């Protein structure tokens, strides 16, 4: 069963070099996140740093958001296509954000530098950051009502951003005029470059010690090893084809049209084929996702199903093939809008896990709320100063065998922090009136789904463009093995004049001083027969107000006086 990689390299040296590659990526990640200005990066860690082989395979990656697990791969491959290795020079840096040329959506800018040793490129160092604004129809460049890419912001094809002589000033002048916060953007591009340079310096030091050619042999061995270990781990998944479907609320434009995501995961001898046939055709609104983006949740599920001890690199995904039907939601034709792709990506992750759960029912919990509610306020204060602030809010986790779902936790291919209320109120004329667990929102079951959360805002000054990018308003997180579904999300605006606006999952509108916005995220799915729920667990939930007395009789079908006091809540 032990099938060691056969090469003539000393496995100890390979492991020593692998440790160093991990260390370099971590160092790049620290540099990137801490020196960035954009709140998306500095608070949300929406950024990644990786080392690549010259063939474009990931060598090591700084831990950040798993959504970026593969995001740099198509970017780096696009750079290699546009600027072949023999046309690169020391000091070069390349950037792009065009979703139809390797990018994922407009705010994500990828940057790559070649690492030279003895006059040739031996590796590549790359970073990706979610920038705060790249122009387009709304501040933040995530317009949920966009119907074509041109509305989504300033598009950057693969470009030589700088040479040894410095940045391309023509490009920078153009860029500055097309974004809302040019100083912040340029600062963040500097941070990306500084992070790439860490990779250059450290790989060059290693090459001085070991020799560039030897180092590249080690890179190949490291990737081979992860490939083999992943394949071996996935052999425990019984061969077969597993299907799952999820439904996206709507595409943000046609609000009455749900959008279907379907996957068929075929496992054979540790190899995985994913087929998106049956997925909705591309849609008018911006939830389309290009294959470069749609790959990330597939890889996430493969990585999560194959074991923590395997070093994460491009080798882990060599055994994965994916079919993206042309013209579908996951392979749209230019210039379909793509900015709100996260909605689709999270549904893809849920589909992948749901399919694999049929083969691994004890390992994979019920569906999580798996929603990343994005709110953006771009407004003007009474004094005329402009502000912009973004919020990322999540729902409940799915329950599993022996495990309640976690209340309010980011899951699957994103892992974002929320905004502290105190920093939000410092940055913007908003008052958060409450931020509380939403009772009764977790799916019932022997193990309860995690609760969603309720957050309420009051606009204090002026007016603001308000973007609400919701999900799970109409299609709940499903329970598993007899567990109930989680409660759906819901949001509303209470206008100062007393009128009420229900937010149909996605909306862009204007809010003004005195308006209140109440958002509530979805709960996670429950696991197992609710009749088997332990009495003291129910009693604790009741005492904690995580379920109400009405819900106890209505949803859980227990007599009102049944739960004993928890032994020690």
């Amino acid at each position: 069963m032990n099938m060691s990689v056969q090469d003539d390299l000393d496995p100890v040296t390979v492991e020593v070099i692998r440790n160093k590659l991990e260390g370099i990526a971590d160092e790049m990640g620290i540099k990137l996140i801490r020196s960035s200005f954009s709140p998306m990066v500095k608070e949300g860690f929406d950024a990644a740093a990786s080392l690549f082989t010259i063939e474009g395979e990931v060598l090591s990656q700084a831990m950040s958001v798993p959504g970026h697990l593969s995001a740099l791969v198509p970017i780096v491959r696009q750079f290699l296509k546009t600027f072949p290795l023999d046309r690169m020079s020391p000091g070069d840096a390349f950037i792009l954000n065009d979703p139809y040329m390797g990018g994922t959506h407009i705010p994500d800018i990828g940057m790559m530098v070649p690492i030279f040793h003895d006059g040739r490129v031996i590796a590549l160092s790359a970073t990706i950051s979610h920038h705060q604004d790249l122009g387009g129809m709304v501040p933040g460049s995530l317009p949920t009502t966009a119907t074509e890419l041109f509305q989504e912001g300033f598009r950057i094809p693969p470009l030589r951003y700088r040479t040894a002589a410095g940045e391309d000033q023509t490009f920078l002048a153009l860029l500055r005029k097309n974004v809302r916060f040019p100083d912040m953007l340029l600062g963040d591009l500097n941070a990306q470059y500084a992070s790439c340079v860490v990779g250059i310096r450290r790989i060059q030091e290693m090459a001085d010690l070991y020799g560039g050619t030897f180092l590249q042999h080690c890179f190949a061995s490291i990737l081979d090893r992860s490939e083999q270990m992943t394949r071996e781990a996935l052999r425990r998944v019984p061969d077969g084809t597993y299907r799952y479907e999820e439904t996206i609320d709507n595409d943000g434009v046609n609000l009455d049209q749900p959008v279907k995501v379907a996957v068929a995961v075929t496992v054979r001898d540790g190899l995985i084929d994913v087929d998106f046939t049956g997925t909705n055709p591309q849609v008018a609104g911006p939830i389309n996702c290009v294959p470069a983006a749609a790959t990330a949740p597939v890889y996430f599920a493969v990585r999560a199903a194959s074991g923590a001890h395997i070093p994460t690199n491009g080798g882990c995904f060599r055994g994965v093939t994916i079919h993206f039907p042309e013209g579908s939601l996951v392979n749209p034709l230019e210039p379909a809008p793509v900015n709100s792709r996260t909605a689709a990506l999270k549904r893809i992750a849920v589909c992948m896990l749901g399919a694999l759960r049929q083969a691994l029912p004890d390992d994979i919990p019920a569906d999580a709320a798996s929603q990343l509610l994005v709110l953006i306020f771009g407004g003007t204060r009474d004094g005329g100063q402009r502000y912009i602030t973004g919020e990322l809010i999540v729902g409940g986790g799915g329950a599993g065998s022996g495990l309640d779902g976690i209340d309010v936790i980011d899951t699957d291919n994103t892992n974002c922090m929320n905004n502290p209320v105190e920093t939000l109120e410092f940055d913007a004329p908003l008052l958060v009136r409450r931020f509380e667990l939403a009772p009764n929102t977790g799916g019932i079951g022997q193990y309860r789904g995690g609760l969603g959360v309720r957050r309420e805002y009051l606009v204090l000054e002026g007016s603001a463009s308000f973007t609400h990018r919701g999900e799970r308003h109409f299609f709940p997180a499903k329970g598993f093995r007899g567990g109930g579904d989680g409660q759906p999300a819901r949001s509303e605006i209470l206008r100062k004049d007393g009128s009420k606006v229900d937010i149909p999952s996605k909306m862009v509108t204007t809010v003004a001083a005195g308006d209140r916005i109440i958002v509530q995220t979805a709960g996670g799915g429950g696991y197992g027969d609710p009749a088997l729920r332990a009495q003291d667990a129910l009693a604790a939930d009741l005492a904690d107000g995580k379920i109400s007395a009405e819900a106890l009789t209505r949803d859980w079908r227990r007599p009102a006086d049944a739960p004993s006091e928890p032994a020690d809540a």
Partner: protein
Amino acid sequence: MKHIKPGSGIEVGVDTGGTFTDIVFRFPDGTVRIAKERSTPADPGRAVIDGILKNARAWGVSLDDIERVVHGTTVATNAIIERRGARVGLITTDGFRDVLEIGRQMRRDMYDLRIQPVAPAFLVPRARRKDVPERLLASGEVLVPLDEDAVLEAAKDLVADGVRSIAVCFLFAFLNPAHELRARAIIKAAFPELHVSLSCEIDPAIREYERTVVTVFDAYVKPVVSDYLEKLEHNLVAHGIDGPFQVIQSRGGLCSAELARQKPVKLVLSGPAGGVISGEKISSDSGRGDIITVDVGGTSSDIALIHKGRAVIRNEGTVDGYPVRVSMVDVNAIGAGGGSIAWLDSSGALRIGPHSAGADPGPACYARGGQEPTVTDASVVLGYLEPSRFAGGNMTLKPELSYEVIKTRIADPMGTSVEAAALGIHRVVNSQMAEGIRFVSIKQGFDPRGFSLIPMGGGGALHVCQLARDLGIRTILVPSRPGVMAAEGLLSAPVEHEAKRSVHWSFADTTLNQVLESLTNLDAECAVAMAKDGVPEGKAKVRHFADVCYEGQSFDLEVPFTATDAGLRSLPEAFYDLHDRVFGQSTDGPVRLVQLKSVHSYLAERSDMGASFPATAGDQGSETRSIVLPGAGRVDAAIFQRASLCPSTEIRGPAIVEQPDTTLLIDQGWTGRIGDEGSLVLTCNPDTGVTK
């Protein structure tokens, strides 16, 4: 009040660890005696008292002559890890009682599908979290006045529910403490015996989740720590030891047990502080300002940085994975130590850790049933450890068990010799430790090549040459007693108090008067505490710091400054320099003051503990042992005993220096000499390159 009377008596340091309680006596002439006693985890104070009494007797010390006792305790930390804290209630702003449970909604392990809670809701289940009407704005102004009846009702409910301790955390209380102070007054008036922790006092800084967590942790450990220290002090006094009784806090300063009981959360990250303070002392004695300490223990290695003679301090650490925002010496643990287990993954690669054999069963060579090969087993196979002299001869190792387990688990499957496998284990774990050290340095913006390395703990000295080589470090300082640095550090730590205030001022709008007014209050707060701890008035060293960030950026940096016109004016420039060091870039953009801090410290003048050495080297280095070194293979190493080294001894690697608390491996290319301050100084010959 107990005044510190320097130089008049014997000082005692007691550091409680998981297995041993280390006892240090320092005599007025500077000599030091050390003993290790078994810890008594069920009642840790017993080992403290018994250890002092027993060794005082053994060393002929009258208890009356003990001038002060300094203690490093893990009671606060263990209360959290073992979930033995008090029953706590939490009172928050209306609408925000779930902040503690919602946390930052981010999970720790991205790929683990079976998610565990990431916020410490176990501290206060929802039923014991009460919210009351009150609200401050981001300006600190009152939007909703405090509902005093609601506070009283909440307190009554919580008391009925059996709480001993209440934490209060209101939004923006770091800007305006009025509501929290009033809430405490109401609670205390009704229930004077309750412990109350206020967020505006424990951690007056922005971000409600982090502030709530640290405040609740304070409330959680307060009754436990308070009972422990009170009882211990009572016992000391009962034995006639009635001088100052001090404990070390997480940032490496001492304070009286009495004051420590008021904000006990400041103790939870104090475990590694003593060792780092010892490092500071070696830094000052040796005149080497920039030092990295690496303490290799059984399951992990602790790494800390000393820059310009001072330990780097950070504003937040973690306990049991939860964020705890208290100032601490910046100690970073990596999951590789002497007990780390070596294993082959399914691709045949040699991996080390993160699993560890710990102290029980420990490495295979301990012969306590350990069946997994560890780093220590590799050290035995390579000949670094002498089985009969391990741990000062208190334990005899069984090398045949190390050999056997490495053979069957690693060498045979790899198709190599046992020695090659053992060497591989050292190379891999050294690469992990070196990357860990590099990461810690880089995070602070330092290039480790300019630093000296100090090995600590039982295992540091075995790895230190290889680590130095990998990091490009050319000087190593091996302290006299690397294995008991934490206990020794207790006696060289200053009495220290810190006070801080959140300000959130645009620098451009900030006046010197504003700053002076704040600092005057902070200084007064510190001065009261210093006086309570017996520091003579006017003797404390006063330092001021500002936490500064760019406008719009949320990471701030602590910048030392002097509160004068010129000092204030130079603040942005100092911030830009620091930003450039830590982040590798800076702009001259507008900056914001986030927090002002005052730190008062006092270290009594002492006769130095003059190291004493034998007059002649005696029969040193004539004994040799065959060992295996990376890059060199099997060589004969000269064996030295640390106790009989004298300043004229020069040791050329390969060599081994043995002492009861550790074993030092001196690699080829390194030369060791006793330095003036008593450390063994290893330097790397210029022509020795880095080992692959």
